[in-house]
């Protein structure tokens, strides 16, 4: 076997691999993206704007720390330190009503095995308007009893399963199930990463109501070595949750987190019902909007972003933060993520009105 001595070769090799990485990264920016309806293609002007923003932030944040801008603290865990930042933005938390969820279940006779659209219409004409009316029906009573029981116990898993069996993922009744979750058990989730497939997670954003206000929390990976403790901290945070609300989280965020947990050989199953707003948004805005990218939807519901960078540039900003040891670009990423979370709340509110309330 030939033994290769370390030589002057490494320096040149490393430079080449770095160049290749940069080149491929740029190519990927311009390539049509997977989940193309969610990630926007990058325009030249957006790119330039983002760079100006980055330079401004680099100047303003030189020599400062994240804790100069945010409230937060560093916890020491057995896997390493975790920085969490928090704030309570002036936005009302989303409080779903249980009655709404119940009303949806009750009016949907098609949840019963054996009842299709035609039978439902016939039954309604015969005076069976809600499931309760069928409680003493010789044929359906048994099934109705089980559903009512699940409603009583707020058994989201059973209800979810039932709904998923008969209705498409974008059906309003699927969203209405959120009514069965206590507001403080609903966690809004959005992550930032270095790539789309197998790269590192660099920021995890969470939002949930606490004492009547919305609490936005960020778990920050200050260097890659902190990804593992941050993931463990996330698992702990999720213990409080009974449901997740995400945007494209079924395909991306939750999958991605599970892949990273697996990478670190941690228990990787996130078994929470995930209310992914993307399909509902498509159903609601399909007619009126050209696409359902987050920023398009934001415009439609009049959300303004103050500091913004395109999602596609997050990895570049993070690398710049690491290289320059200056939190400026990281602040931009945190603000971007924060806005994503707030938009999630606002979009949910809109969808709740448009799809869930109107459908009653």
């Amino acid at each position: 076997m030939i033994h290769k001595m370390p030589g002057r070769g490494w320096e040149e090799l490393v430079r080449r691999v770095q160049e290749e990485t940069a080149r491929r990264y740029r190519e990927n920016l311009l390539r049509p993206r997977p989940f193309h309806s969610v990630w926007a293609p990058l325009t030249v002007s957006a790119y330039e704007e983002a760079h100006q923003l980055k330079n401004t932030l680099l100047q303003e944040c030189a020599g400062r720390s994240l804790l100069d801008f945010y409230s937060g603290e560093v916890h020491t865990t057995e896997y390493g330190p975790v920085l969490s930042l928090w704030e309570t933005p002036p936005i009302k938390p989303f409080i779903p009503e249980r009655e709404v969820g119940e009303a949806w279940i009750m009016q949907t006779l098609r949840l019963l095995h054996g009842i299709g659209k035609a039978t439902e219409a016939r039954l309604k004409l015969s005076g069976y308007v809600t499931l309760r009316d069928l409680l003493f029906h010789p044929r359906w009573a048994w099934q109705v009893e089980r559903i009512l029981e699940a409603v009583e116990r707020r058994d989201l898993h059973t209800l979810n399963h039932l709904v998923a069996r008969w209705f498409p993922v974008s059906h309003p009744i699927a969203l209405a199930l959120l009514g069965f979750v206590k507001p403080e058990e609903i966690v809004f989730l959005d992550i930032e990463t270095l790539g789309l497939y197998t790269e590192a997670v660099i920021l995890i954003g969470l939002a949930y109501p606490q004492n009547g206000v919305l609490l936005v929390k960020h778990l920050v990976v200050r260097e890659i070595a902190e990804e593992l403790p941050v993931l463990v901290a996330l698992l702990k945070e999720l213990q409080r949750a009974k449901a997740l609300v995400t945007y494209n989280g079924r395909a991306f965020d939750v999958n991605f987190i599970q892949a990273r947990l697996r990478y670190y050989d941690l228990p990787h199953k996130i078994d929470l019902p995930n209310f992914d707003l993307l399909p509902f948004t498509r159903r609601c805005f399909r007619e009126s909007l050209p696409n359902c990218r987050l920023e398009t939807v934001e415009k439609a519901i009049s959300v303004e972003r103050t500091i913004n960078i395109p999602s596609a540039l997050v990895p570049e900003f993070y690398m710049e933060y690491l290289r320059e040891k200056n939190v400026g670009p990281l602040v931009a990423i945190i603000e971007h993520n924060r806005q994503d979370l707030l938009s999630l709340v606002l979009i949910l509110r809109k969808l709740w009105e448009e799809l869930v309330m109107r459908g009653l």
Partner: protein
Amino acid sequence: MAFEELLRDLVSQDWYAGQIVATFTLPGKAPNYAESRLSFHPAVQGFLERQGIRLFTHQAKAAELILAGEHVFITTPTASGKTLAFNLPVLSRLLADKEATALYLYPLKALTQDQLLKLRELEAGVGFSLRPEIYDGDTPSEVRPRIRAQARILLTNPYALHQYLPWHHKWARFLRNLRFVVIDEAHHYRGVFGSHVALLLRRLRRILARYGAKPQFILASATIANPEEHGERLIGQPVAVVKEDGAPRGEKTFVFWNPFLDTNTSWSNQVASLMAFLIGEGLQTLCFATSRRLAEVLATQAQAKLPGKRVMAYRAGYLPEERRAIERGIREGEIHGVVSTNALELGVDVGGLDAVILGGYPGSIISVWQQAGRAGRGPKPALVFVVGQGDPLDQYFLRHPEELLTRPHEHAIINPKNGPILFRQLLCAAGEFPLTTKDLELFGAEGDVAHALLGSGLVAGTPVGLVYAGTVPAVELVNLNNLSDRTIRIEVDGETLETMDYERALREAHPGAVLLHQGTTYLVRELDLGEGVARCVWEEVDYYTEPLICEDVRILRALEERRYGNLQVGLGEVRVTQAVRAYRMRRAGVTLGVEELSLPPVEFDTEGVWFALPRELARDLGPDLAGALHGAEHALVAIAPLHALADRWDFGGLSTPFHPDLTAPAVIIHETFPNGVGLAHKLFSVLEEWLKAAADLLETCPCQDGCPSCVLSPRCGNENEPMSKNGAAQLLRYLAESLVRPR
């Protein structure tokens, strides 16, 4: 001899001009059957009895070792039944253990299709289904989840495996139960590709360990000289070797054909005529060509001579459906002749053909036997034509035909410690799981690689190991065939014709280059290296182009040096700067003109062997010195592939009356892969044999002042000037003798 009449017929053709220089008939061989019964699963045993299959000795030995749980390397000739030898025990084990799975790796996509059919036939015979499936880039996405969930035998290629490894969790069932990894055509894993695959297999082993699987590795290949060494380097564990062949062989007649004895008819025209003659005699004929271009040209010419018959070209780069259709056509006899690159040399089953034409020395003795083995499977007599080209090795073998049939097979050389390859593969591994110190050992990585990885910023050091920290998937940074992964798209009217790597594009897709694709010529108008596109137009031209390459070589560091009097021979690291300086337009071997190019040079560090010559020798050679050095360089490069499994373009050279690093007249022969894959080491270990063969090449070449068969190189950037064949022969003989002369 079985083909006497046919050959008599051939020499009486009006176009025959005495080109047959030698005819040998190798006798057939009776089979050697195994005596003992093996402990196969009853279903497999029953199948063998029903079909009346008796195992040959090597098959039984291989099966026995596999059933005993060993890593096994079967290296016996083509058509000796290697596939059955490993399929039987694998099937047997998979039938006994209802969860067990097996992974079959083939170096080329084209091979998997054929092997799948073989497996399915075997299954049908045994009466069980293990759902063998192909899973690679051609697998439609809608069937992928089903295959992942159900297949118990999976056939794929290293390129696909490389892409899928990061998604191992989707394969959890398959990986957890993996009992066998079958690596067929293992001799194909040499050089850069082989070194990459060796590390890819270590990545696979590391992931499998996570799933608690520790499969047996089964390797199969054509006969190579170093199966123990190659097997162990490839899989990182010792292997038990099976090499005695018990299969019968039919009589084989080799006819050596020197096309240069007929100066009126071009090489390709003669091969096409030969092919047309054989097909006309009712022999289905396979002709091997040494390049894609040649395959296309020969197929077109042969077809033109045979109206009413079908002659096709076959090569990698065709769409899978096209290839399948051609393979089927050959099997079913609808296609009467096929001209192929070495794509058909490996186990693609096109059935037994009646005759094979080797259209030029394929680059290795291993390939000679693989290609010849395509003719007449089983005990049937077969006919093989060896048509030499003008290249030095071709001519060497036309002058020593017995050598071609008796030379030992080459060593397969890989170097999994090659810095750039190791570095990139480690990035991929870090993308799959954090890399621990123990993992680094598995990859044979020294501390300095870890250091370089950390320094690159592409991985981060964490308490659990090195974590990938890049912004693009690590697997995108690795091309198993290449050290740089920059590729150039060949575009016609905005549509991609094919892709080639950066360095190759500089040589073959420079402005003005003529590209051939499926018999159609394209002219390159523009090579945009920044965008990675070569823009071509369709244009019918009747000439071809050849790049002229200039290079400079500096010596960085000696690893070993030997002195013989005032002669100094060294092995070490060199820095090579190469540039495609110009290209030559040629028609039928005649130069039409030379056009200058201005392309960026390529610089890389690699390993080489140098000869620093004594000053007094320079005095003796006088004005011939530069020409002698130049000729010696070309001869040494030309003959180098005789000693290690490699081709002529894997080596480059420089000669100069004064080299600044050696302060002497010098000849330097180096590898053309950055950091080297071990070829220079191999040459340094056979110095004397190498020099003698080079001297012999020149001394026995009948030409006066040098020809393309000895000292003239088609790619020489200095257009073979200055050149002295006699000086070179004298110099090489002197060098060979200096080595054995007592100091």
